[in-house]
């Protein structure tokens, strides 16, 4: 990239990919630093994926392991699918950040530490018995000790910043240094600093000076043997933006409402890691979006359902604990047969669990977490940018079938970012709310009347007639209703019919779901793989990358990823039947695996991880290798 700040280098190496992790105290600005490094990489044209990780506490005690906040970014000259298994470079702003992250760094990787932070007290506070910079415990890494605090304070002297204030800019020093190391221009970051801290000129100056000082340090200190360049990725032509899952999901809801010609109503209650969807939608009021920060989770979904009754697109956003509270209202929505989108950004459970960490723990709750026979369709997003399309699909199902729909995301997708090729807005699907305007039934005396539960033959959806429509006044409720008229009915035969109709209606959605896409290169030529890896949700990246790597080492493995969890795509049973072994990686103790075993009597095997962290590619790859070894051995024996 051309830049006035890029003097010629003595030694530049070109590398294919890089995984950097910035780690420091939660007050050290690591998320901002990571975001800016990411933005610069995106602008340069690299493919990337990010993984922020921060403590649940806003400011856990400084210098402790509990307070460490980190941001990992994977950038590459080729398309990548995950934020990387292990950092090749770790920037550790203090001993706690080093201790919490050093285990993950690849052998031979680089560790850049703020050596000023390694005094005796801080080293002890992090739980080290001896100074790791002195005791040889880091021998397998290349360690660069940089007195970042001192250099930052020194750099800020010309503007008269007090040392205590100047010190706060040390994250920008680190960013400047890493930017030099990987040939990132500083201008985008300087522009960002000027925008973000516009009201505080001294902070703009301090951060800019620290950033440049970091760059210059890299340039002049001769500490590093080489700097590196990651050539731009060859991405599909188009316009790209860098997007997190929560932002893409919020935009998808806006697009879905727009494509249905409905006004969007969000009833929500703040909860980690879903709150950013509320924040994003609250910013977009000019779309006519009404956002209500309700008194509790129950009111959030209740208000959304009330808005849907009035003809809006009712949406509620939450995470696990909120889902528990909303369950009764979701059951009401099942009974009322009104559109409603319930976004569950899953996090580690049970109870408060791990608020800031990811888990796919709510699939069975979404599937079964209501009393009575209360089927709800489920759509799950696979990647941060896929949250956009998944949200539109959830809206389509909710509106077309007059049903609550679960849209599952998780903490990993919510906060992770990736470049997204912007879709052509003109090609987005149109959704028809088909409001009923006329009576749909004739009373015995010939009077036209409206029957709220007289269903569409094709979809079994009931008519959506909204208040304000003359002649269609009707009452609906949670009590069982007479088929057709919707009057209260306790008739046993009618109840059986209604339970079955509700189930049939949801099952019938499968007719509008595209068949499951199978990735099995051998299938076309009749040499199908014997192992299928089946995933859903945020395991997409790790599975796809693991399958790619397995194939690169000569293994035959097929892959498929579910977006619709209820109902399943109609060909899922056939696909599963084609494989000797089905592996289902999930960040839970085995939820999809139970569903497919129950539905298809397939002896699927789970690969399960519940550490509040996504799968590493290597973990899935190892499982594939382990499963294929006996299969391959038996094949060879037969041959």
């Amino acid at each position: 990239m051309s830049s006035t700040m890029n003097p010629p280098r003595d030694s530049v190496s070109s590398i294919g990919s890089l995984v950097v992790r910035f780690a420091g105290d939660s007050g050290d600005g690591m998320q901002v630093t990571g975001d800016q490094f990411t933005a610069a990489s995106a602008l340069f044209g690299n493919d990337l994926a990010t993984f922020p990780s921060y403590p649940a506490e806003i400011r856990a005690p400084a210098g402790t392991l509990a307070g460490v906040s980190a941001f990992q970014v994977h950038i590459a000259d080729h398309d990548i699918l995950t934020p990387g298994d292990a950092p090749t470079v770790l920037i550790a702003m203090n001993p706690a950040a080093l201790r919490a992250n050093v285990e993950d760094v690849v052998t031979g990787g680089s560790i850049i530490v703020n050596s000023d932070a390694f005094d005796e007290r801080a080293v002890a506070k992090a739980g080290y018995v001896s100074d790791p910079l002195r005791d040889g415990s880091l021998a397998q890494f290349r360690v660069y000790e940089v007195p970042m605090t001192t250099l930052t304070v020194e750099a800020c002297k010309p503007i008269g910043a007090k040392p205590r204030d100047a010190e706060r800019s040390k994250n920008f020093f680190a960013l400047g240094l890493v930017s030099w190391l990987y040939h990132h221009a500083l201008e985008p970051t300087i522009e960002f600093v000027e925008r973000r801290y516009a009201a505080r000129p001294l902070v703009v100056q301090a951060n800019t000076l620290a950033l440049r000082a970091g760059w210059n340090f890299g340039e002049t200190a001769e500490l590093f043997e080489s700097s590196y360049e990651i050539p731009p990725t060859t991405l599909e032509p188009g316009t790209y933006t860098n997007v997190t899952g929560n932002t893409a999901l919020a935009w998808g809801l806006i697009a879905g409402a727009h494509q249905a010609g409905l006004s969007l109503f969000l009833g929500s209650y703040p909860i980690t890691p879903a709150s950013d969807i509320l924040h994003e939608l609250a910013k977009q009021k000019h779309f006519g979006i009404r956002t209500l920060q309700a008194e509790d989770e129950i009111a959030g979904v209740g208000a959304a359902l009330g808005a849907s009754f009035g003809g809006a697109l009712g949406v509620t956003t939450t995470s696990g604990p909120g889902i528990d509270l909303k369950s009764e209202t979701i059951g009401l929505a099942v009974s009322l047969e009104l559109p409603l989108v319930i976004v569950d950004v899953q996090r580690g459970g049970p109870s408060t669990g791990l608020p800031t960490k990811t888990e796919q723990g709510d699939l069975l709750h979404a599937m079964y977490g209501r009393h009575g026979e209360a089927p709800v369709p489920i759509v799950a997003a696979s990647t941060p940018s896929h949250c956009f399309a998944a949200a539109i699909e959830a809206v389509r199902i909710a509106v077309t079938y007059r049903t609550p729909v679960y849209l599952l995301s998780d903490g990993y997708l919510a906060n992770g970012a990736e470049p997204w090729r912007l879709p052509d807005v003109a090609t987005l699907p149109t959704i028809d709310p088909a409001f009923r305007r006329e009576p749909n039934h004739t009373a015995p005396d010939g009077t036209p009347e409206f029957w709220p539960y007289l269903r569409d033959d094709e979809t079994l959806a009931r008519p959506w007639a909204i208040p304000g429509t003359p002649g269609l006044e009707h009452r609906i409720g949670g009590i069982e209703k007479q088929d057709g008229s919707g009057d209260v009915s306790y008739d046993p035969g009618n109840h059986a019919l209604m339970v079955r109709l509700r189930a049939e209606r949801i099952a019938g959605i499968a007719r509008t779901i595209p068949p499951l896409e199978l990735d099995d290169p051998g299938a076309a030529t009749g040499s199908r793989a014997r192992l299928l890896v089946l995933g859903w949700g945020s395991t997409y990246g790790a599975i796809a990358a693991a399958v790619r790597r397995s194939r690169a080492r000569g293994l035959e493995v097929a892959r498929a990823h579910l977006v619709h969890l209820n109902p399943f795509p109609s060909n899922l049973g056939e696909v599963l039947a084609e494989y000797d072994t089905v592996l289902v990686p999930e960040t839970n103790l085995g939820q999809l695996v139970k569903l497919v075993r129950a539905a298809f009597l397939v002896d699927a095997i789970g690969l399960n991880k519940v550490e509040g962290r996504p799968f590493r590619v290597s973990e899935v790859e190892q499982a594939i290798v382990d499963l294929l070894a006996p299969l391959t051995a038996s094949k060879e024996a037969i041959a």
Partner: protein
Amino acid sequence: MTTTDATTATGDTPVALTTRKDWASDQEVRWCPGCGDYSILAAVQLLLPELGVARENTVFVSGIGCAARFPYYMSTYGMHSIHGRAPAIATGLAISRPDLDVWVVSGDGDALSIGGNHLIHALRRNVDITILMFNNQIYGLTKGQYSPTSEHGKVTKSTPFGSLDTPFNPLSVAIGAEASFVARTHDMDRKHMMATLRRAHDHKGAAFVEILQNCNVFNDGAFEAITGKANREQMLVPLEHGEPIRFGPDGSKGVVLGADAQLRIEDVDAAGVDALLVHDEQRSDPSLAFMLSRLARGPFEPTPIGVFRAVERPAYGQLVDEQIAQVRERKGPGDLEALLRSATTWTVG
């Protein structure tokens, strides 16, 4: 396609003349014979034709309980929802459809026990809804357990040795929750009910009306001492805006604000008319309304009825729409294409 509000407001179209019959649904009313709910239903069905609103623009939302069956008996739009949640559901409906006339029908258990949180927040936000709380001081639908308004020591199936709870005073709760309209009426006086409900309906914002209602099966005669025909004159204290608060035969008794900042009931002859407290429902400070709500310790002492408080405050839905209009003025209408490009973008190829 553009995003539109799903409204079909009739605007200034005159509303066709209707009668009570037009507002009754074809469903058989299934409350116990003799239940106070019948007279409330009649009062509402008689009132609605007089309000100048169209049936199609009227919605009744309820939770669970005997009172919650109310929407089924109205020929309007209606939703019989789940226990306690009607104010939350009505909030979403009223905010997204400011053109509608939204009523919430609730009971003492529904509104003050399981749904207490939604009630207080709907009131503080001043959502444009009219909340009718039928207070019979008992759980009827579940067959006779004590409620959050039952008197201390109440012997019921769930409290065979007497309840230990201090009851809620519904009007004190509503006033404490920043309600802009608070009133009380009772099921034995249709005229008073209709007048009070009309005021509640006409109020912009959240209106809360406690209707003392007799449950003749599980708590018969709970309000007889104050609402019984023979007792009313002595025991009900009518509140009239701008008038001295007095009651009893020939207005012989009145309410006086003492120097000790306490309200007390005195003989008008002794205290003098000028000493009586003049009712001001529009007083911005809610303290006097709060004190009036606590004049009686229960339905065995002289009890004020009528409008306690009616102050003007913008309805929540109106504020929401004004904010949207302001943001639109500043940013222009929402544009999906522009939204997707609102962060940094780059082009490949």
